[in-house]
């Protein structure tokens, strides 16, 4: 590849990443409205359970550590991208996928358990807000996993091209962003929820 096309790819990447960044900012505002709703409704338990009665804190800590580690392994894949190291990219993405799927598995099994105990989203305004906020984050993680597997399969088959480099960089932004949102879900919903 000559110097000119390297520069061209870089400027294309910086332009597309600004566009994707703008999407992330609007997504932040989506989460902001859900956080505001949750903050307003957190005590509206309608005689049902409050947060501290239903949260399984050790599992929530596990979820947080898993997602944080997956953000790190995603970073490792991105570093492999910079050095055109296909093995490192693929192993990094595989680790990210496994950790992301483990996170989602814990979250969904918690949801299933809560709904089974009659604490579904229809039980109180607090639970509606809880399921909407945590579920919206989980939905983002699910979409992220789909995107990740398509990218990993394409890189495995075609190698690291300019186009895939750009796409994977955007995915990296998305995944780090989801981890950041989770830090606030962890703090506002769970940690602040058990403070008396």
């Amino acid at each position, binding site marked *: 590849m000559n110097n000119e096309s390297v520069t061209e790819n870089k400027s294309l990447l910086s332009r597309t990443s600004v566009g994707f960044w703008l999407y992330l900012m609007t997504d932040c505002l989506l989460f902001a409205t859900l956080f505001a709703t949750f903050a307003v409704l957190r005590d509206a338990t309608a005689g049902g359970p409050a947060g501290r009665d239903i949260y399984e804190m050790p599992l929530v*800590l596990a979820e947080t550590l898993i997602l*944080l580690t997956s*953000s790190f392994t995603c970073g490792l894949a991105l570093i492999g991208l910079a050095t055109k190291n296909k093995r490192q990219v693929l192993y990094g993405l595989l680790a990210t996928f496994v950790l992301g799927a483990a996170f989602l598995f814990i979250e969904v099994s918690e949801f299933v358990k809560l709904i089974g105990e009659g604490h579904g989203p229809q039980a109180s305004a607090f639970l509606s807000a809880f399921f909407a906020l945590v579920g919206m984050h989980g939905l983002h993680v699910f979409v992220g996993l789909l995107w990740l597997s398509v990218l990993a399969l394409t890189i495995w088959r075609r190698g690291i091209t300019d186009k895939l480099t750009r796409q994977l960089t955007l995915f990296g932004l998305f995944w780090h962003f989801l981890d950041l949102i989770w*830090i606030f879900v962890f703090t506002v919903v769970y*940690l*602040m929820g058990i*403070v008396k």
Partner: protein
Amino acid sequence: MMQKYITGFALSLALTLVAYFLVINNETHPWMLVVLGVLAATQLAVQLLYFLHLDDEVGPRLKQLSFWFMALILLIIVVGSIWIMNNLNERMMHFSPTEKNQYMLTEYDKGF
């Protein structure tokens, strides 16, 4: 690059564990909400710098500009909602649920 990710990862891990064990061991401390807020804000800064690389942007700083604008709107939505709804709750506090219902019905009959 690698060094940066490891530093960010270690800092985030430490901040998460500190927040978690502080809450688990002092659930009733009056300053706990403030402490948790500060820890979360610190981790926000760490991840923005070490994972999302918000600081090494060159040229026109569109990412930083849009981030701060988003932060402004976010604060208006979140702080505004909490403020207004708590204020409303407080004003309705001295009513019992039945009285509240009655009050809203009479206000509604007056028309807007």
